[in-house]
């Protein structure tokens, strides 16, 4: 693989130096329009960061953009967090490789949203301040609950970061012919800049702008595909079935979710996981009140749903217009392994399709947008991870709340830098994994540790600190252990063979979520301490605030 990368690099440099593209060089030309668009994005987003930095003075500004984001803006930002490189490249790549299975993923990612709206979003807004741990620890003991929530957040954030880093590496590898590791380092450095200087305000606006660009680009691609087939889905699918190696199997659920346990477990991970992702939950604190929080979810669900329908069309479009087209084939790989592998792997299907429908200029645009996507999502993730470290662990647990805001922000910035370094190292270590599966793992942990504690803290009066800590830890531990023993880590990474796994399922959520809920229930109802009594008594006041918003955090006007 290294040889191929260096070959690309050499070709890229040669093309740049010669200015004329001929022979083999045409396979991987240096795309000047793409590079210019990259640079425009980067300088634009740095400009936003500069603007945001001047408006980010207090901790509230840093963590929640002062609470002044509108419902529509926040909806776009949430959708932007969702329309990550993993969703865009991973799901369209999954549709390209397996057809219908990609749609199962999309639906799972989406249907958590309505449930979050109905049950969680308003309460979250009414109770919280900066992180979801503010809500979970509202009437429970700060120390243990925040420690648990911070570990759940950091684990989720790091797994999600890996997926994004892998996406960025592949993308720049394909577009520039640069070594994978260079891209990962570049993304890591830029995200640290955005977050440390611009805080949530910069992170949100980078996300909004990217969401608009990505939705526009994906719409254009889907329209271009449909136009080829006279807007007849039947014609598109018929052609795809004809050229795909799996034939008609791509029109029905297939190999991805092969057994009942996997299917149900994946469903639970996606649905509950959405309600436990720290970088998404954090967005509910950036709006002024419960009304805006609701509107956020309405817009977000609409944009995300629309986007997933587009990725489905894009995936099928890639089957027809990229598969078996020699210009997108990885000839070196084909010579060794046979079949028809495409350059950069299946996750690059959407990128190749952009070239097929819009030439080099549009390839440049989509690549630039995909790059912006990664930057925007990793920034949000890093901010959430850094908040867990500075606001939950350092300020609340370590300093017991006796800390001034400026110092807390400083810790947050150091944490951001640390996360950036960790993301770079892990991004390089996980180069060869399918990035959609990576996000699945992050979801399992969010669903098993963060969600049960958060949900029960708002809905179940009898929840106590002991129950939440033991049950939540059991959920987190079960999820992590089963992921480590599962087919990807124990199987493919350690033993080089998925079948060598000790735990046979890729998605542990069915088991780990059950363990968490049972653990929380059991260790709460058996908790007869005085503290437990006080915590149960404090539920009424919490419930009234969560239902009405009386006493909730307001917005700061700028």
């Amino acid at each position, binding site marked *: 693989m290294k040889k191929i990368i260096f070959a690309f690099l050499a070709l890229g440099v040669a093309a740049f130096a010669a200015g004329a593209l001929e022979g083999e060089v045409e396979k991987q030309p240096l795309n000047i329009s793409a590079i210019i668009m990259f640079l425009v994005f980067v300088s634009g987003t740095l400009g936003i960061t500069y603007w945001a930095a001047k408006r980010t003075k207090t901790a509230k500004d840093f963590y929640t953009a002062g609470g002044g984001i509108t419902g529509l803006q926040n909806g776009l930002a949430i959708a932007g967090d969702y329309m990550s490189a993993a969703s865009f490249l991973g799901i369209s790549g999954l549709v390209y490789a397996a057809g219908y299975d990609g749609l199962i993923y999309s639906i799972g990612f989406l249907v958590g949203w309505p449930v979050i709206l109905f049950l969680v979003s308003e309460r979250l807004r009414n109770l919280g301040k900066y992180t979801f741990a503010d809500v979970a620890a509202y009437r429970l003991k700060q120390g243990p609950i925040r420690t648990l929530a911070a570990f759940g957040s950091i684990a989720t954030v790091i797994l999600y970061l890996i997926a994004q880093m892998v996406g960025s590496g592949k993308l720049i590898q394909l577009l520039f012919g640069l070594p994978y590791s260079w891209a990962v380092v570049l993304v890591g450095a830029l995200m640290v800049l955005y977050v440390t200087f611009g805080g949530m305000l910069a992170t949100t606006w980078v996300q909004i702008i990217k969401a608009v660009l990505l939705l526009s680009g994906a719409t254009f691609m889907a329209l271009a595909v449909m136009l080829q087939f006279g807007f007849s889905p039947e014609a598109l699918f018929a052609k795809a079935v004809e050229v795909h190696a799996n034939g008609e199997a791509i029109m*029905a659920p297939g190999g991805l979710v092969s057994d009942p346990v996997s299917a149900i477990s994946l469903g639970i991970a996606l649905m509950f996981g959405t309600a436990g992702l720290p970088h998404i939950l954090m967005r509910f604190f950036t709006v002024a009140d419960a009304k805006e929080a609701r509107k956020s979810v309405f817009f977000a669900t609409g944009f995300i749903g629309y986007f997933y329908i587009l990725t489905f069309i894009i995936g099928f479009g890639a089957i027809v217009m990229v598969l078996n087209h020699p210009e997108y084939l990885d000839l070196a790989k084909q010579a060794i392994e046979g079949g028809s592998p495409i350059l950069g792997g299946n996750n690059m299907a959407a990128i190749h399709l952009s070239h097929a429908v819009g030439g080099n200029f549009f390839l440049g645009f989509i690549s630039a947008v995909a790059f912006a996507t990664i930057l925007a999502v990793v920034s949000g993730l890093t901010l959430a991870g850094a908040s867990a470290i500075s606001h939950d662990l350092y300020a609340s647990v370590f300093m017991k709340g006796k800390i001034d805001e400026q110092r807390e922000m400083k810790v947050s910035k150091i944490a951001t830098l640390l996360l950036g370094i960790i993301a770079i190292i892990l991004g390089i270590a996980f180069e060869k994994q399918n990035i959609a599966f990576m996000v699945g793992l992050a979801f399992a942990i969010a669903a098993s540790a963060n969600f049960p504690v958060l949900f029960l803290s708002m809905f179940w009066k009898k929840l106590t600190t002991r129950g939440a800590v033991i049950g939540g830890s059991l959920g987190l531990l079960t999820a992590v252990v089963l992921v480590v023993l599962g087919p990807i880590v124990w199987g493919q990474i350690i033993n080089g063979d998925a079948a060598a796994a000790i735990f046979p399922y890729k998605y542990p959520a069915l088991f780990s979520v059950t363990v968490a809920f049972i653990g929380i229930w059991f260790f709460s109802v058996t908790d007869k301490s005085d503290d437990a009594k006080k915590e149960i008594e404090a539920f009424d006041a919490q419930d009234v605030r969560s239902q009405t918003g009386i006493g909730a955090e307001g917005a700061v006007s700028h």
Partner: protein
Amino acid sequence: MKQEIVKQIQENPKYQELVSKRSKFAWTLSIAMLVIYYAFILVIAFDPSLLGTKMGDGVMTIGIPIGVLIIVFAFVLTGIYVRRANGEFDELSREIKESVKG
């Protein structure tokens, strides 16, 4: 929040109306979404070929419109909830807040 105020709000009939109406509405919609989604997942788990049933003479299977409809359904449900919550429920919340101030 002081315990007396909590009690006062909890005894307010408007508060009781808000809580019962909203929780009934929210759970009904949530269960509707869950039932549809898990029905879909269970079909995939136990009888995946059902979604591969052909619709006509071509290659189109019923799985595809069903998948797209679930996405549309999710969006419509959020719209229904937001419409009622931003009107009726917020109005009740506002009245409760005013009664506390007064």
